[in-house]
């Protein structure tokens, strides 16, 4: 049983992303905004399994998370697919410490990309209403999300990366 969990830890942890996304723990938030949870999983997965795998799982994550949110007009898929593809091109760094901080920066960039793509969809949809008032809360959302994702990424990504490497080694 333990062997099974060790082998499949990456897939099992994948199941927990939507749960954390729904749980939305307020005590981890900043200005009411949460870190962008799927990136924490997508970064180590793409780094280990490559761009194409990252792209596919970015799509899967987007599909699941879109099903959990009620905004039919907007989708998280483009951001996650781009991030999955880009993260797959990142090489491991020899220095552990630099690697840790790099996860933070990469995830911050990913969160910025996803947030901006989502915001552009909202802007495009509400373009006819010329609703420029949406600009300030949206920028606030993006910045808070970028900060939080970058802050938590070194802790979570390095753990997940270790776990995924271990499970890959076991399964081979």
């Amino acid at each position, binding site marked *: 049983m333990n062997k099974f969990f060790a082998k499949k830890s990456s897939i099992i942890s994948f199941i927990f992303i939507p749960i954390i996304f729904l749980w939305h723990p307020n005590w981890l938030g900043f200005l*009411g905004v949460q870190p962008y949870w799927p990136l924490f999983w997508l970064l180590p997965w793409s780094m280990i399994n490559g761009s194409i795998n990252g792209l596919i799982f970015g799509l899967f994550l987007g599909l699941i998370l879109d099903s959990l949110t*009620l*905004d039919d007009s907007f989708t998280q898929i483009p951001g996650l697919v781009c991030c999955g593809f880009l993260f797959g091109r990142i090489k491991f760094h020899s220095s552990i410490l630099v690697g840790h901080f790099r996860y933070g920066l990469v995830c911050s960039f990913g969160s910025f990309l996803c947030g901006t793509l989502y915001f552009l969809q*909202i802007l495009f949809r509400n373009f006819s209403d010329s609703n420029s008032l949406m600009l300030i809360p*949206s920028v606030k959302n993006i910045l808070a999300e970028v900060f939080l994702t970058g802050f938590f990424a070194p802790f979570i990504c390095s753990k997940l990366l270790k776990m995924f490497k271990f499970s890959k080694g076991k399964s081979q």
Partner: protein
Amino acid sequence: MLGIRRISTNRWWHKKKNWIFFAIFLLLVFVRISKGSIYKDFYYFISKPFWPGQFQKEIILESIDQEYLIKLNLLKKDNLRLRQILSFQESTSTENISAAVISRKTGSWWRQIILNKGSRDGVEIGNIVIGPGGLLGTVKDTSLFTSSVTLITSPESKLGVWVDRIQINGLLVGLGDDYPNLILYSKDADIKVGDFVSSSPASTLLPPNIPIGIVQSIDETLKSKKTAKISLLAKPHVIDWVQILKVSI
């Protein structure tokens, strides 16, 4: 002749006791003139520990609550009767369902809550969700055990509302922050900060007269319309229990 004169030491003002009486007399005169203010203030301090405490306050508040509830029910009946007389649109409330909030996304892009009652409990898409304070949103999606509610702060939300003081309809649009925007398509509308906003009697989505919020600030820069930020009465980020109104409008 001189020998029988009273000696000065026997004068009344030489007696200490008399001076004490005189001082008390003066004090009482002062108390009388000041209408007992010193006495009352003194009483204020010594009676302070025996004032009605928290317990008594709760009893009184409970009584006030009951009084308000009775008044509210009477007013509701009156309102229904008057609406029938005027042939206004009326809401026929069949049943309310209490539900707990099991997931809350109120601060980010997504403004939604998930409740622990679903289609199994009779919740339907389009049902109205209210919390302590007033309107929270509408049920957008149901599963067997849960229902997802789009909050009125969501950019997806657009509702017809009513500003009671100036008797005008407006459109409440969520902006993705905590303060939805009220749009009045009339430049002359005399809206003021503090005006009360409720659901519109003309709305086809909501039953009338559900409290929504209070005007917090007004923006008059636009040429053809007035917009105002609304502070919601029901706070979705802290509410744990809500009521789902099964209404047919």
